[in-house]
C-alpha cells in the first residue's frame, strides 16, 4: 500500500509540474475521500464528541461539502442543520438517605433513637434514570430484585409472596453468583438496573435502593453514575447505597446482608425476601445536562417525483459523523496510556461521512427519479440519538421513504471484504447488490440481519428497508489510534462507486422496495449484563462457525492469553460459541479475574488457552 500511494503522490507532483490540465484518465486520480477524512479526524476537531465545538465544526464542514456537491436544504428548510436535544451527562444533585430503625428493642420509645443520615456519592447516590423525589417508608429486602418472565420457563421472581406496595425496596446488584451457567445466563438478561427499577415499580414500590453485595465484584461500593442518554426517567426514585448504609438498614434484622446474599447466590428461587426493621427518608436528585447537537440533512432532487403513482419518492443515505471526543465516556477502549487522548475516529466514522459526501458528488451528475436525502448524524456513539430524533420527528413522512442506506466504518478494508448487513429487510437487495458488485468486485459478505449497532437500526425499527455497509472492526476501534493515515482510501473510493450504483438503482427502480420484517435475534444478550472485558475484537464481516477475531486489544486479556487475529473462538467457559450473540451472552457469565477455558480454532486446529477476564472500567 505504501509504495502505491508514494507513486500516486509522485504522479500528482509530476502532473502539477508539467501542466495543470492533463486528461484525468492519464494520471492517477486523487482520492475523493481523503480530504474529508483527514479534516474530520484531525486534532482540531477533537474527536467530534456530540455537542462539542469540534462536532459543530464538523457539521459546518459537512454542510459546506454537501452544498459544493450540489445538494440543497430540504424543501421548507432554510439550512441543512436539524438540531436535537440530548442528555450530555448526569450527576447527583445531593441525594440523601435517613434511616429510622423500627427494630424491636428494649428501649421503650423507638422514636427517641437517633436517626442515621447519609449523603455524598460514597454513601448514597441517585441512579442516572431516577426520578427526582422525596419519599419515606418502610424498607423491604427483595433479594436480587429479578423478575424473569414466565415465558422463559425458569420460575424466578424475587417479588413472589412479598408485599412491597408503597414501600421502598432494597435489592442486590447483578444476579446470583453461584448458580450454574445456564441459570446465570437466563437471570443475567433481567439484571439490568433499569429492568429492576421497572419490576419494583410494577409491584407498587415507591422507591428502589441498590447495593452491591459483599460477595459480588466491587463489593459495597456505590455505582458510578453512568452516562444515560435517555431524556426520561424510569418513573421511580432509585439510588445506589454503600455496603455500610445497607448494613445499617439490616441492623436488627434476622440475618445479615452477607448471610442473605449467600443464601440467594445458590440460585434457589424459593429464597424469599423479607421486611427490614427500618424505614427511610429518601431524597433523590439527578442533574441532567441537556445540550443540543445537529444532524446535517440535505438532498438532491429527483426528476420523477411528480410521476403519477410513483411511490415512496425518497431514498436516504446516511452516516454518523460524531465520535468519542477524548473518550471520557464508557465506550472508549483506550488503554491506560491512551486515556484522555483525542479519539480521532477516522474509520469511525469520518470514513462513512466522507463516503456519503462523495456519493452525493457522484450522484449529482446522474439521472435520478427519486430524491436522494443525505443525512449525517450526530449522537450515534451515545446511543443512535441523532437518527432516533430524525425518525421520531421526520422532516418528510417515513411512508414516503423507499429505503435507508448506512455507512459506518468503511475505511479499513481487509481481503477485499465488504459487509452488507440487513439484506433480509427487503427482497430487492440481493439483485441490486449482485449487479452493482459484478462491476465493483468486492468479496461481498451479506447478512440478512438488520439489527445492527448503528443508525440503520433506527430505520429498521420504523419499518423501512435498510442496508448497512462496513469493512468491520480492527484493533484501533474506539481508541485514539483510529487515525486518518490508517485509512485505505483506494478501497474507500471503490466503495463510493459501488454505493453510488446501489443508491442509483434504488432511486430509479419502478416499484419501491418492500419491507420485510426480520425476526430479531433470539438471545436478548445486551452489554448491560456484561461486567468484564476479554479484549477481543470480533470480525463482523465474516460469517464463521464461532467468533472470528479481527484482532485483540493490546495488553488486554485475550492478548495475554495468546489469542490473535484470525482465531475462531468456539467455546468460552464451557459455553459453545457459534456467533456474536452467543459470545455476548457468554460474556455475561464471566467473572473478572477468574480464569476460564477458551477453545479456539487456529489454522484448522483446535486449541485451548486460559483467559482471565478483566473488570470493565
Amino acid at each position, binding site marked *: 500500500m505504501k509504495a502505491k500511494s508514494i507513486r500516486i503522490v509522485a504522479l500528482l507532483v509530476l502532473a502539477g509540474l508539467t501542466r495543470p490540465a492533463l486528461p484525468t484518465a492519464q494520471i492517477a486520480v486523487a482520492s475523493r475521500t481523503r480530504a474529508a477524512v483527514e479534516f474530520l479526524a484531525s486534532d482540531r476537531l477533537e474527536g467530534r464528541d456530540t455537542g462539542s465545538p469540534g462536532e459543530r465544526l464538523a457539521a459546518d464542514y459537512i454542510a459546506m461539502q454537501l452544498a459544493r456537491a450540489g445538494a440543497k436544504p430540504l424543501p421548507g428548510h432554510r439550512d441543512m442543520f436539524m438540531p436535537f436535544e440530548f442528555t450530555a451527562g448526569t450527576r447527583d444533585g445531593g441525594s440523601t438517605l435517613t434511616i429510622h430503625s423500627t427494630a424491636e428493642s428494649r428501649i421503650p420509645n423507638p422514636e427517641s433513637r437517633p436517626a442515621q443520615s447519609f449523603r455524598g456519592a460514597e454513601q448514597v447516590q441517585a441512579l442516572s434514570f431516577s426520578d427526582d423525589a422525596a419519599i419515606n417508608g418502610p424498607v423491604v429486602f427483595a433479594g436480587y430484585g429479578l423478575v424473569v418472565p414466565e415465558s422463559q420457563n425458569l420460575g424466578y421472581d424475587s417479588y413472589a409472596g412479598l408485599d412491597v406496595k408503597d414501600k421502598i425496596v432494597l435489592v442486590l446488584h447483578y444476579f446470583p453468583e453461584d448458580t450454574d451457567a445456564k441459570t446465570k445466563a437466563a437471570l443475567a438478561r433481567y439484571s439490568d438496573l433499569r429492568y429492576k427499577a421497572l419490576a419494583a415499580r410494577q409491584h407498587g414500590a415507591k422507591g428502589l435502593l441498590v447495593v452491591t453485595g459483599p460477595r459480588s465484584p466491587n463489593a459495597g461500593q456505590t455505582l458510578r453514575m453512568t452516562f444515560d442518554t435517555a431524556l426520561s426517567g424510569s418513573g421511580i426514585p432509585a439510588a445506589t447505597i454503600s455496603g455500610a448504609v445497607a448494613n445499617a438498614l439490616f441492623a436488627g434484622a434476622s440475618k445479615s446482608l452477607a448471610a442473605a446474599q449467600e443464601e440467594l447466590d445458590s440460585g434457589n428461587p424459593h429464597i424469599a425476601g423479607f421486611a427490614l426493621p427500618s424505614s427511610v427518608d429518601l431524597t433523590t436528585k439527578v442533574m441532567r445536562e441537556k445540550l443540543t447537537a445537529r444532524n446535517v440533512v440535505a438532498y438532491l432532487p429527483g426528476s420523477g417525483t411528480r410521476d403519477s403513482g410513483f411511490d415512496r419518492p425518497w431514498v436516504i443515505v446516511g452516516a454518523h459523523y460524531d465520535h468519542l471526543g477524548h473518550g471520557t465516556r464508557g465506550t472508549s477502549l483506550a488503554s491506560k496510556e491512551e486515556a484522555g487522548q483525542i479519539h480521532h475516529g477516522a474509520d469511525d466514522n469520518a470514513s462513512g461521512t466522507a463516503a456519503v459526501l462523495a456519493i452525493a458528488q457522484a450522484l449529482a451528475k446522474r439521472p435520478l427519479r427519486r430524491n436522494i436525502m443525505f443525512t449525517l448524524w450526530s449522537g450515534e456513539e451515545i446511543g443512535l440519538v441523532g437518527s432516533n430524533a430524525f425518525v421520531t420527528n421526520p422532516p418528510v413522512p417515513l411512508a414516503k421513504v423507499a429505503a435507508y442506506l448506512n455507512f459506518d466504518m468503511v475505511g479499513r478494508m481487509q*481481503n*477485499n471484504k465488504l459487509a452488507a448487513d440487513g*439484506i433480509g429487510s427487503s427482497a430487492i437487495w*440481493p*439483485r441490486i*447488490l*449482485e*449487479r*452493482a*458488485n*459484478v*462491476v465493483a*468486485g*468486492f*468479496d*461481498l*459478505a*451479506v447478512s440478512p440481519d438488520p439489527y445492527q449497532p448503528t443508525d440503520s437500526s433506527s430505520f429498521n425499527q420504523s419499518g423501512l428497508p435498510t442496508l448497512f455497509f462496513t469493512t468491520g472492526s480492527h484493533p484501533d476501534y474506539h481508541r485514539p489510534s483510529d487515525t486518518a493515515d490508517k485509512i485505505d482510501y483506494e478501497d474507500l473510493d471503490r466503495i463510493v462507486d459501488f454505493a453510488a450504483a446501489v443508491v442509483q438503482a434504488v432511486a430509479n427502480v419502478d416499484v419501491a422496495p418492500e419491507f420485510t420484517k426480520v425476526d430479531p435475534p433470539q438471545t436478548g444478550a445486551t452489554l448491560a449484563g456484561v461486567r468484564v472485558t476479554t479484549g477481543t475484537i470480533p470480525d463482523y464481516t465474516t*460469517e*464463521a*462457525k464461532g467468533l472470528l477475531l479481527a484482532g485483540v486489544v493490546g495488553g488486554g486479556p485475550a492478548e495475554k492469553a495468546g489469542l490473535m487475529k484470525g482465531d475462531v473462538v468456539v467455546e468460552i467457559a464451557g459455553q459453545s460459541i457459534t456467533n456474536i450473540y452467543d459470545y455476548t451472552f457468554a460474556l455475561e457469565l464471566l467473572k473478572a479475574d477468574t480464569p476460564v477455558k477458551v477453545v479456539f480454532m487456529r*489454522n*484448522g*486446529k483446535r486449541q485451548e488457552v486460559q483467559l482471565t477476564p478483566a473488570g470493565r472500567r
Partner: protein
Amino acid sequence: MTRNFSGAARTLWVRVLVVALALTAAPAAQSINHESDFLSRIRRLTVEGRRAGEGYWSSDGKRLTFQSEREPGNPFYQIYALDLTTGDTKRISPGYGKTTCSFFRPGTDEVEFASTHHDSTSKKQQQDELDFRASGKTRRYSWDYDPEFDIYAYKPGATSSVPPTYTRLTNARGYDAEGSYSPDGQWIVFTSMRDAYNRTLSAEEQKQLEVDPSYFAEIYIMGADGSGQKRLTSVAGYDGGPFFSPDGKRIIWRRFDTSGLIANVFTMNPDGTDVRQITDFGAMSWAPYIHPSGQYILFASNKLGFENFEIYMVDIDGKKEPVRITYADGFDGLPVPSPDGRQLAWTSTRAGGSEGQIFLAQWNHEKALEALRAAPERKR
C-alpha cells in the same frame, strides 16, 4: 449441481463412514493456508437466489453462464448469462422445469444446457417442491437424475423483440446432461444414463437403477446439431462431467467406482481411445477442467474430509502430486479458469451456510506453474 458427485452416495452413511475412516488425516503442515499464493481479489459473484453454481465463461471472457435458483415461482435451477462488464443478468432457459449444466458455444451467443421443460408435469413438480420447502422439512442434498433431462441449444432472437429458439438435441429416455462444446463449436460431449433404459436390465441392474441411476452414466459425443450420438465409455459406475481440452484433442472427465464414493480424473481421445487415469487420491476427485495453457488440470476433491471439498491442481499427465489451491471449510469445487487463464470462477460455500454461490478470483498462472514444478513425483 450435476457435474456433482453421486447423489445416492451421500444417502448411504454406512459407506460414508467406512470411507471416512479409510481416508488418512491431513498432516498438520498442510493446514498452512496457501490460497493467496494462487488466488487474489477473491470475491463473491452471485448474491441473488438460494444457491448458484457452475459458472462457465464465454470465449471472450466477458460473460459467464451459470445455474441459479432465483426464478420466482420455480424452486429449481434456471440458466442465466451474466455480463461481467455491466453486471446485467439475463435468463437463458425458458423459466420452468429443471435445468442444469450450461456452456457457451465458442464464439457465439448460443448456449447449450439440459432441461426438463418439455415434461408436462414440470409446473406441478415446481409447486410440490415449493410446498415441501414451505413445510419446513429438509432432506439431505442429492441431485435428481430426472430421466426427462435432455440437452437443448439456445439461440437468441436476431433482435431483442424476437424470442429465442430452443433446439432439442437429445431425446433418449434417461438423463442427458453435463454437455460442453469442443473449442471449434462443432461437437458436444455429454453424459447420458440412456443405457439404463434402452435395453432389458438384469434384476440386479434394475435394483441398482432404483438406488442410484448414476451407476449407468456414460460419456457420449454428438455433433453440435445433435447428430451422430456416439458412446465413448462403458465402465460400470458414474462417468460424467466431460470437457474438451483447449486444443480439442482430448476429453477430460471423472469416473466414479461402482460404490459411488471414489472418483478420479481421466482423459481420453475424442473417439474414446487412449484412456489415462490422472488422479489417485482414493477420495472423490471430480469436476476437472483443463487450464487454457493446456499444462495443468484443476479439479475438486474431498481428500481432507467427506464434507470438505477443496480445489486442487495437477499437471496434465498426472505425474506429480496434486497441489492444494483452496483452504476454506465446506465446499470449494467446479473450478473453471477464464479463457485468458488469469481468472478462476468456482462454486463455494465459503460465505457461510450450506448453499453454494459463484466466486471469482484472479489466478496466478506463474505461481501455479512454479508450484507444479516443485510438487513431488506421484508414487505409483
